[in-house]
């Protein structure tokens, strides 16, 4: 297992429509602000294990952990620009993706 350096959240894509999902306290969320945050390696492993079970149950695809930083408001924001893009939508079409409905 890689060294645990940053808090992490679990991302996936919805099987039905491909939309980016975040594992929250009560299941998959479409808003990253509701993502459950793993603060140590054990919590991260638990998130990953849950994600694998969800893949096996054919509810989501393409599950992985992403490093985040926690803002003053407690909201996790991905550190890498790829995932920063995924929580919003295309940077060239602000009317599309999660940002279109003010969700990001």
């Amino acid at each position, binding site marked *: 297992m890689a060294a645990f350096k940053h808090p992490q959240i679990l991302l996936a894509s919805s099987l*039905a429509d491909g939309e980016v999902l975040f594992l929250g306290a009560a299941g998959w969320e479409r808003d990253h602000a509701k993502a459950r945050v793993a603060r140590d390696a054990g919590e991260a492993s638990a998130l990953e294990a849950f994600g694998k079970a969800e893949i096996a149950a054919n509810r989501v695809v393409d599950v992985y952990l992403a490093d985040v930083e926690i803002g003053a408001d407690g909201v996790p924001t991905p550190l890498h620009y790829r995932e920063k893009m995924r929580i919003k939508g295309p940077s060239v079409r602000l009317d599309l993706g999660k940002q279109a409905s003010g969700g990001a």
Partner: protein
Amino acid sequence: MTAHDTTLTRPNAPVTTYRYDDFDAAFVKERVAEFREQVRRRLAGNLTEDEFRPFRLMNGLYLQLHAYMLRVAIPYGTLSARQMRRLADIADKYDRGYGHFTTRQNLQYNWPKLVDTPDILEALAEVEMHAIQTSGNCIRNVTADHFAGVAPDEIEDPRPTAEFLRQWSSAHPEFSFLPRKFKIAVTGAAHDRAAVKVHDIGLALVKNDAGEIGYQVYVGGGLGRTPFVAKLIRDFVARADLLAYLEAIMRVYNRFGRRDNKYKARIKILVHEKGIDAVREAVEAEFAGMDRAVFSYDPAEFERIAAYFTPPPYEALPADSEKLRAARVAHPAFGNFVEVNVAPHKAPGYAIVTVSLKPVGGIPGDATSAQMRVLADASERFGFGELRISHEQNVILPHVKQDDLFDLWKLLDAAGLATANAGLVSDIISCPGLDYCSLATARSIPIAQAISKRFADLSRQRRIGKLGIKISGCINACGHHHVGAIGILGLEKKGQESYQITLGGDPTFSANVGELLGPGVTAEQVPDVIEHIVDFYLAERQEGESFIETWRRIGHARFKDVLRREGEDGAGI
């Protein structure tokens, strides 16, 4: 009209596009039904993602960064007005009101839902379209010159050949699981507008000393992480031997192409590692020893296909239009459009119009559903209901009377489709990059937009002249950056987007892979660097010289040196 309007018949079908026969229609319909069942089983949990992925890819369905993406084939780039309208209807009903025209004569929808994709494929099948073999390790959508059938420099329309190859390669049992994807392009003209030398197989129609038409065959071209210009494997293949010869090439590739490493699995690597002479020897041996009767060329079948691509009923017109001349004088903006976006046509009194999908600051290749309908209407009013999609991500109206150009321009202008920049510095090829693509390592569209805005002045663009900028958001090179006169490659460097710049790429018969200018630069620096390059070219060029000609004459080192001085120690450039 809806995407499922079955009342549509073919009265407005252009006379120069292939029409499905009963076999084609039944085949595509069966594939849709098959995929509908696969999607049902997937959503019901009877198929895992690993089991389902090959099925969805065989039908052009990817999972991208924000959603699924469906890639629709536009064989050899030819579309009817009816098909274009159907693409628009699908964009409205199942997507988000737009589509993205790609560098391989496809259209991509960026937001389809998995559950809707069988309905989308059914709507496509109703207008003789599909998404078969737009993905996967098979022979992909065969592409061709977008000026096919109308270019004055043409030896023969390449589309009958492309359609012939499409029928041969569709669901080919031996070549459905190749080591990697396989791309074929065909050109029939003296000037290559299909980039045949950067395809796995490139075919150029030629006439031999006996006056027979056949094919020059190039093998092993391609871009991606290991770019190569294709090598000539045969100077002349008679039409009668074409399928058998291509079959022989495919067999050699299928047998000897590497499968141990997906990055080395393309035929270009085989050609590079074994050498073209060894590959030629193997192909010729296969060709000589195979049972060619199975692949025998049926002239009647070729003629049947070719009959779909006969010229439309052109009027007998004077070579030059007085009405056009007067309108150009009276309306300078229109005059500029004609100068830049209108090309000569083989029929007197007609013209080929390139409709740029690159408005200043726009997203290269994107068209709204409303724009697609305007283009469909325009093609019916002014061009026998036929359109083409170019590998340069533009739309072509191939049969416009010179007398109609002004009325066409007004229609296009009202729809934001009259940007007079075809072939100029803002006519930028760009892949979707990290704004959409899960493989990308950096964004490419915003770079194209920034450069386009920097050179927004169209009169300045005309002074600069022909200059192809091509941008890719990763090393897979969907934006063809290697063959851009100025190529830009987006990568990740220390957690940031970084852009490498190459000069001297060329996608035509004089194909060349661009040379690296120096270390990568930031997104913000790219427009400045491009402007420095262009300014240096303008200072150095001789009368009538294009960018690529100046670069070839004075050499890469001069460009590199001057850019290094601009960046002082070169660190920023």
